[in-house]
């Protein structure tokens, strides 16, 4: 039961977050998918605001549950913190450079430096606490 309801939430959120329609572009600009190491450099390491990096894998169920949760938490921050999503299979070296072993992993970064990290699935309250620290 628990899983089913979560999945529904994910589907609802997911369809919003992953929509490719240009009209959505502005609304979801607080979250983006990292394309390659250069993109990571430009948009994460050189970001003016703190960035939460979500290292995820498409084959990992907890990741699929975590991503929509962190997306909703970040969306509430209205651009004070950004969310960068990194598919570890597409950017393996990047993930390995940040010592990602088990997924999901969330890393808080500011000025190119790792400030904090949490491993595994987290509930929304925990995510809020994690993000709040860097959105003030």
């Amino acid at each position, binding site marked *: 039961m628990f899983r089913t309801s979560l999945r529904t939430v994910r589907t609802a959120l997911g369809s919003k977050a992953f929509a490719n329609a240009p009209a959505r572009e502005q609304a979801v600009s607080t979250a983006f998918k990292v394309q390659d190491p250069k993109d990571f450099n430009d948009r994460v390491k050189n970001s003016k605001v703190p960035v939460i990096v979500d290292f995820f*894998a*498409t*084959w*990992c*169920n*907890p*990741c699929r*549950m975590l991503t929509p949760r962190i997306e909703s938490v970040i969306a509430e921050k209205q651009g004070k913190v950004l969310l960068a999503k990194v598919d*570890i*299979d597409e950017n*393996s070296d990047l993930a*390995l450079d940040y010592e*990602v*072993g*088990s*997924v*999901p992993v969330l890393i808080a970064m500011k000025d190119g430096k790792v400030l904090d990290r949490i*491993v*595994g*699935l987290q509930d929304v309250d925990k995510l809020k606490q994690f993000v709040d620290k860097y959105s003030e």
Partner: protein
Amino acid sequence: MKSRESKEKKSWYFNCCKKPQTMDSDLSDQENYTKSLEKLVTEQENIEADQKFMYDLLVIGGGSGGLAAAKEAVNLGAKVAVLDFVTPSPRGTTWGLGGTCVNVGCIPKKLMHQAALLGEAIHESAAYGWQVPDPNIIKNDWQALTTAVQNHIKSVNWVTRVELRTKKIEYFNALGYFKDQHTICGKMKNGEEKVFTAKNILIAVGGRPRYPDIPGALEYGISSDDIFSLEKAPGKTLVIGAGYIGLECAGFLNSLGYDATVMVRSIVLRGFDQQMANTIAQEMERRGVHFIYQAKPSKIEKQADGRLLVHWVDKERQTHQDIFDTVLFAIGRKPLTEELKPENIGLQLIPETAKIDAIDEQTNVPNVYAVGDVLHKKPELTPVAIHAGRLLARRLFGNSTEQMDYVNVATTVFSPLEYGCVGLSEEAAIAIHGEDKIEIYHAYYKPTEFFIPQKDVSNCYIKVIAFRNGDQRVLGMHFIGPNAGEVIQGFAAAIKCNLTFPKLKDTVGIHPTVAEEFTRISVTKRSGLDPKPQSCCS
């Protein structure tokens, strides 16, 4: 009890992929303490090697054998690189790091076999009181199954990748070939070539499925490289080849609800005990798998509706044809040795098979070694490759002298009713020792759990081959029944310890299990007595 359960569940949610248990999950870390001394010595030697070559060991092939050797070598202080590259199958299927077993072999096949067993269990459960809504309408969702299987594989690929990084093994996604006996060229995906030099080179490239030279085979056929990630349900399937891969594929496809036919050229399960092999085929036939014996495919044509028209020739040279949705070739595997450009270093291959006749894993080129499926007349099994790779690394970098023992390796065919064996087949025992020197014990048995759902027990059969005289040492054990792999593994250890028939009989069984049947076995073939059990509850 309940709280513990929920806690376990929770921890599963928390961490998706700590470490899937695979063959490669090595235990060798625990042994590292004892090796620290040896390590110092090896490091000294390796410093000298470093001055000349980039690596102490370069492994070509990131499968079970290559990775096991690489990990053991770094544990012993060597500088190691691994090249791994998957050339797409004719159908275009590719996969990640980890080799055949993880990606297109043991792991996905065991998962699909498990899916098949679960389907069987659903039907049986009604007899045990489960109120299953008409079991006949329960269907397997092929996409859901393949997605789950592929997701597990991808998680193993990732864990392997992480492990290489943690252990500081350099990994390159490149197709390697010999330039000279210390130099390997690695061709990357983008066509660029990278040059690597190493003191020792390990060939662990494994093999890939063969295709017959008939029209339509490459265009329309698939192989075990493709079946586990096939995007569309296979439908009515013709499996060509009756080795263990062919039988396993036909077995799980049939159990998942697809019409499956096995085309046998000559015999079933070549190399295995033929009585056991034929029993397995008989059991599969009883479950609905079709067999076409003594036939060879001659042509595959694609019809306008997309289905495949297969022509074959029987032993009387008569041509037959039938229509299938999928044609899967399981006619054997070909080692990837020619791709290594062996001529550049004078590496000798067996002309007929292109395999490497290595002595103690060493090829005719002294610093070039080989493990795994490329080896001539060695069992093509993941644990064999792993063990050989690990022992080789210890000999190269840990001053070990221990050699790989390729004798009495147990294995299991995951046919619907499984077949596990260790040691000699009846034929081999007779050929080696002579019929009058050996005794064959055999028995049919009835697994307890088969009674209630009234499952057919006619092919639950075991056989023990032992010397007739002297210490009556056990030469071979064969088991057909549920969980054959689990059953035979322990007996393999006993045989490694020179199990004798009196010791086997002196072992007290665990009741009620299927494995205990080995401790009860007493009827010899020579006696001519009926090996069938009493008809009622004994």
